[in-house]
Structures are given as structure tokens and as C-alpha cells.
């Protein structure tokens, strides 16, 4: 009885350990929720298929070009020009962090069709409740 239980515990432990190894190795690539402009510029081929790209919208770079929203996305001193197709969320502003989803095209611009806004962990009162002010 006791030996049977020890054996069973060992089998469960081995199964759990194998599962943990498989899960961590499978997750290694996907645990990175987004890439930074520096990583994409260093390895452009990796961004030829759909990736997420995170950074801040460079203040002053935002303009509308027909259906497209064009801006520079920067993090850690490196920036990429982004052409976003489709309306961003209402909280989208210059200076705010965003994560976009799309493909790096051959001319070096990143064509995205999905934007989520990455807000920070600082909470400040709104000075004018009617017209939200810029965060910085």
C-alpha cells in the first residue's frame, strides 16, 4: 500500500514536471506580448509576419492621411513610422503608450490594423472634465 502510494506520487510528480517543461518551452516565444521598435528594426524579417509592436506615440508626429492614421512609434530611442488603418480607441493620444498589430512592409513602415492603448499606472485628476487634456 505504502509502496504503491510512493510509486503513484512519483508518477504524478514526473507527469507534472514534464507538463511544466512543455508549457514553459511552448510559451517561451509567445510570452513576449509585444516587440519594441528596436527589436523589429534589428530583425526586420521577424516582422514580415503579423506581430505586435509596442511604444509611445511620438508627440507632434500624428497626422491623418485619408483613411490612414500616420504616426511615429518610439521606445528606447528607436522609432518606426506606422500607418494605421481604422479608428483607434477614444483614449488614443500623442505621448501615450500603444500596442499595435500588423506587418512591417518592405519600405520600412509598419502597417497596422489594430490599436490598443497602454495607459500607465499613474492616476491624476482631470483638470477639465469636458475636454480631456494631454497626459504629459
Amino acid at each position, binding site marked *: 500500500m505504502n509502496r504503491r502510494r510512493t510509486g503513484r506520487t512519483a508518477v504524478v510528480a514526473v507527469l507534472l514536471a514534464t507538463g511544466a517543461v512543455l508549457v514553459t518551452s511552448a510559451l517561451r516565444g509567445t510570452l513576449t506580448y509585444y516587440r519594441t521598435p528596436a527589436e523589429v528594426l534589428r530583425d526586420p524579417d521577424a516582422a514580415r509576419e503579423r506581430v505586435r509592436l*509596442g511604444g509611445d506615440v511620438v508627440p507632434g508626429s500624428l497626422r491623418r492621411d485619408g483613411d490612414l492614421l500616420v504616426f511615429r512609434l518610439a521606445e528606447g530611442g528607436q522609432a518606426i513610422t506606422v500607418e494605421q488603418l481604422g479608428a483607434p480607441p477614444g483614449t488614443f493620444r500623442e505621448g501615450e503608450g500603444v500596442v499595435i498589430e500588423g506587418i512591417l512592409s518592405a519600405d520600412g513602415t509598419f502597417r497596422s490594423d489594430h490599436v490598443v492603448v497602454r495607459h500607465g499606472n499613474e492616476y491624476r485628476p*482631470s483638470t477639465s472634465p469636458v475636454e*480631456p487634456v494631454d497626459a504629459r
Partner: protein
Amino acid sequence: MKHAANPSGKRPGADREIMRASTVDLVADTARAAAARRTMVWTAGGLATAATVAGGWLAPPDAVQGPAQRLMYLHVPAAWVAYAAFAVVLAASGAYLVGGELRWDRFARAGAEIGVVLTAVAIATGSLWGRLVWGAWWAWDPRLVSTALLLLAYAGYLALRRAVSDRTDARDGDDHRVARPAALVGILGFLLVPVVHFSVVWWRSLHQQATVFAPQRPPIDPRMALALLLAVAAATLAALCVLLHRVVRLERRLAADAPRTADRVPARIG
């Protein structure tokens, strides 16, 4: 009010008169304990009212997120108290494994039930907050995925209890055949809590990092911090009320059934 949950289920002996002056066995099925529990419910209700006023009106809307940020006063307490409920599962499961006292097993079950509900509330409020501010109901982000895993783990814990008690015809909350495997899973499941909490630090995440439990606390408006504090206090006390209520109800139900196992805790009649 000073109170102590007496988990041993034993009658206090010689020191009972001294104990009576200061402590009440909050999970006892007596009129005194019920009155003490009612006091807690009213206190929790008062705190919840104060938190509603503070979070709904006193605290200003956030500069970046606008009024959607007020969801923080639901989302953060739900998440924190869910952690606390799983800590109850951890502590009670450990106490059960050490002492073999089945009452701890009932605390663990009640803690898991509360934790699962609050984790679901945290995911639901977070999803709405995410829709309003991020622009997405859900993202395959480390914090969100690990929280979903936490919910699954403790839903699995409750399912395990049910499955074992069905298979062995043992009474859930009153049988070591259910309590022992449940305690092991309850302890192992808690490993996910630090993973969830630190997921925003260990991995790149869409979710913002902690504000209150941050090494260098980022700025938060004092009125927002007050509303958050009140909401957390209300949620903690309310969850404690539910925990005690669940344990009392479970013990009452077990006492009503005919005793089938030898090692059950003696039922106490008020």
C-alpha cells in the same frame, strides 16, 4: 470589536470566562456569534456606502482615462480580496494537513468559493475597463492569461472536491478522503498567485503595473487613493462575512445529516 475565529471546534475550557469578555467564536452557531457576525455585516455595509460615495463622486475622474478609471474601485478590491481568499485556502489547507482538523478543510472550501467568484468579478470588471480604455475586451497578455489560469485552477479545486465526494460517497467538508487531496491542490494552486501579481513585472504586458504595491509609488491623487482604500476595506470585510457565513451554513448542514464518519467534529447546539 476584537474577535477570533476559533477553528478547533472545542469548547474553551477553564479560561472560558476570561475569553467571554473579549472574544467571540465567530463561526459558532450561537446567538452571540450571530450577533457579532451581523455587526460585521453592518460595518461592511457602512464601508461599502462610504466607498461608493468616495469612488463615485468624491474622487475626480482620471486625466487620461476619464470616468472609466472609476472601475478601479471595483476591479482592484475584487483582485486583492481574491488573492486574500486564496491565501485563506493556503493557510487553512496547511493547517488541515498539519493538525488533521476537518474544520480547516471547510474554511479552505469557503475561501476557494469566494476566491473563484471574486476572480471572475475581477476579470469581468477588468474586461469592461479594458474595452473602455485599451479598446479591447480581452488581450492575450500575461496578466490576463495568468488570471484566467488562476480562475481555472481554483474552479478545478472545487470540481475536485465535488468529484471525490461523489465517487467515494463522502460528505464534502466532513471527510478526510475529500480534504486530503483538496488540501494538496489548494496549496499548489497558490503558486499561481505570485505569478499573476508579478506577471506585469516579469513580462511585457498591456496591463499597467501596480500603483499602491510598487517599490517607488507612482503618483495617485489622494482622493482616488482614499476611495480605493475604502473599497478594499469594504470588500475585505464583506468577504470575511461571507466566509464565516459559508462555514456556519456548511456545519449546520453537516450537523443536520446523520453522522456517518467517526472523526467528525461534534456538532454544537447554541
